[in-house]
């Protein structure tokens, strides 16, 4: 799944690079203008490299951390069919993490450094996963809504300007479509089941709707007068640069709207209520309206210092530390084989 998290807003989009005078910048921009991809050995502005690295790393970390809320239900899946499906999904997430770490590594960093940055809290993952997966239905809601949001985000990223990222995303996209379908299918089974199952499904949607709609698309980046004007202005500046560089193709708010437009009819078919009284069809716009998100309050509730954020990171670090001796053994074995 893909996320442009809240901290994308802390990137410095305006940073230039030395060396812009010798024609390399012109060649870089000419490639972008021609719709060509930038490849690892091409010269690129530092700002471009840093923005990409931040986005790809965050995306990779989100895949890996995102395995936790669903992975915790593998042992409790209520049918062997669902257990198999969930295994296949969590496995895909590990695979997506690997594709993306490999793409990030073409920018001159090592996966070990990226994991270290995650573990030290210097790089982020999608705050969406700092919500708890409390019931079995949450695995369905996460797949349907969170992955659904991810697909909306990802489809354009298959044509992102950086070659390795685009190629990784094309693989991810091919596989992600299955995640959304199976999530919807899981929710449908619950909705057609007993009243208790249906209640569990609605409860999960109540808790996962806002995280999907708010956090999977990043901060607002369309300036409209109001409380979020400052955030939105900054977000708009970041998005403008990302779009100019072809890293992104659409603003966060455009994608958010597209996601809402997809979900509302699906929820209606399931007979589930999306927890936003502001949702209604707007004939004039040809889109669904939806309620404003109280960004400041929401962000505060989801800082790094929440119970679940700590748990996610601690879980990840424990796995990494417990496995250190295994990685060391593999490296020692490799060195030994090399020497033979």
């Amino acid at each position, binding site marked *: 799944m893909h996320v442009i998290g809240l901290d994308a807003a802390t990137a410095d989009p305006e940073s230039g690079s030395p060396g812009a005078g010798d024609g390399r910048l012109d060649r870089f921009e000419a490639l972008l203008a021609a719709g060509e991809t930038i490849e690892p050995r091409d010269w690129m502005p530092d700002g471009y490299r840093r923005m990409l690295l931040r986005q790809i790393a965050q995306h990779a970390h989100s895949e890996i951390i995102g395995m936790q809320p669903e992975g915790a239900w*593998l042992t409790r899946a*209520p049918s*062997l069919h669902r257990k198999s499906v969930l295994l296949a999904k*969590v496995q895909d997430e590990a695979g997506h993490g690997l594709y993306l770490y490999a793409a990030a590594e073409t920018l001159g960093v090592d996966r070990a450094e990226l994991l270290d940055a995650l573990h030290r809290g210097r790089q982020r993952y999608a705050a969406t996963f700092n919500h708890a997966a409390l019931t079995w239905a949450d695995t369905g809601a996460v797949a349907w809504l969170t992955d659904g949001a991810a697909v909306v985000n990802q489809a354009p990223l298959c044509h992102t300007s950086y070659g390795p990222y685009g190629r990784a995303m094309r693989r991810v996209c091919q596989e992600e479509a299955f995640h959304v379908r199976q999530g919807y299918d899981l929710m449908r089974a619950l909705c057609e089941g*007993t009243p208790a199952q249906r209640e569990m499904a609605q409860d999960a949607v109540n808790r996962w709707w806002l995280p999907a709609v708010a956090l999977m698309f990043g901060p607002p980046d369309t300036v409209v007068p109001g409380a979020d004007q400052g955030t939105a202005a900054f977000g708009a500046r970041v998005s403008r640069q990302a779009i100019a560089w072809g890293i992104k193709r659409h603003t966060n708010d455009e994608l958010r709207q597209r996601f809402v437009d997809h979900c509302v009819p699906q929820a209606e078919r399931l007979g589930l209520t999306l927890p936003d009284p502001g949702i209604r069809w707007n004939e004039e716009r040809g889109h669904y309206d939806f309620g404003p998100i109280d960004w400041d309050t929401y962000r505060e509730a989801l800082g790094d210092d929440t119970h679940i954020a700590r748990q996610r990171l601690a879980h990840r670090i424990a*796995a990494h530390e417990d496995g250190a*001796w*295994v990685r060391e053994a*593999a490296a020692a074995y490799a060195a*030994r084989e090399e020497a033979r």
Partner: protein
Amino acid sequence: MTEAVALLTARLGDDALVLGQRLCQWITRAPTIEEDLALSNIALDLIGHARTLFTLAGELDGTGRSEDDFAYTRSDREFGNTLLCELPNGDFAVTIARQLAYSHYAVLYYEACADTAHPELAAVAARAATEVDYHRRHADGWTVRLGLGTAQSARRMQAGLDHVWPYIAELFDEDEVVRRMEAAGAAPSPAPLRARWEERVGEVVERAGLAVPAPRWRARGGRQGLHSEAFGPLVAELQSVYRQFPGGIW
């Protein structure tokens, strides 16, 4: 006779399900992301084996029980898996030792079933054999890497083998069910496969620079539903959501 085949088929399914369940507990905790992927792949195969075996058992015993009936509605005492498969994960070396023991056994036994067994069981076994052979490769590779890696990994891998070895004999036990089936030519006894297993596993352990343990006791009881105390929580967790929603559709 069909009843005996059904019993044996369900036992094989129990081994696969319970081991798969243990491997599920690794996911998000493996030493590398690649191993999360590898262990989940193996778990996925094992759950797949359990599903086909349970479905077949339900057909053979005439009850028409589904795969989920077997997995979710039986009590702990009705599971016939070996104690090896329910052994808690321990560290990565214990898990690899358990995988080494089981996958070599499963390759041999499924291949034997594919040759001689009841036709439907033979078909299931033939497919499973190719998949567990991949699990065997994974276990062989890690046994050697850990054995020859660092001093610490060699010590842990040896400890893993020592921990697991007393549970191996049970895999090859012959009881009344097995004897009846073998007499009828419906399925092979695992007992004669032990020598081949010792040979193949011994070769891997030797390549890893480790010692084949000589345990002074052996575990028994799993096939009769007499499990370890760690088994109750495993089954409780497996069945928790299913049991929480009576009449649920999944």
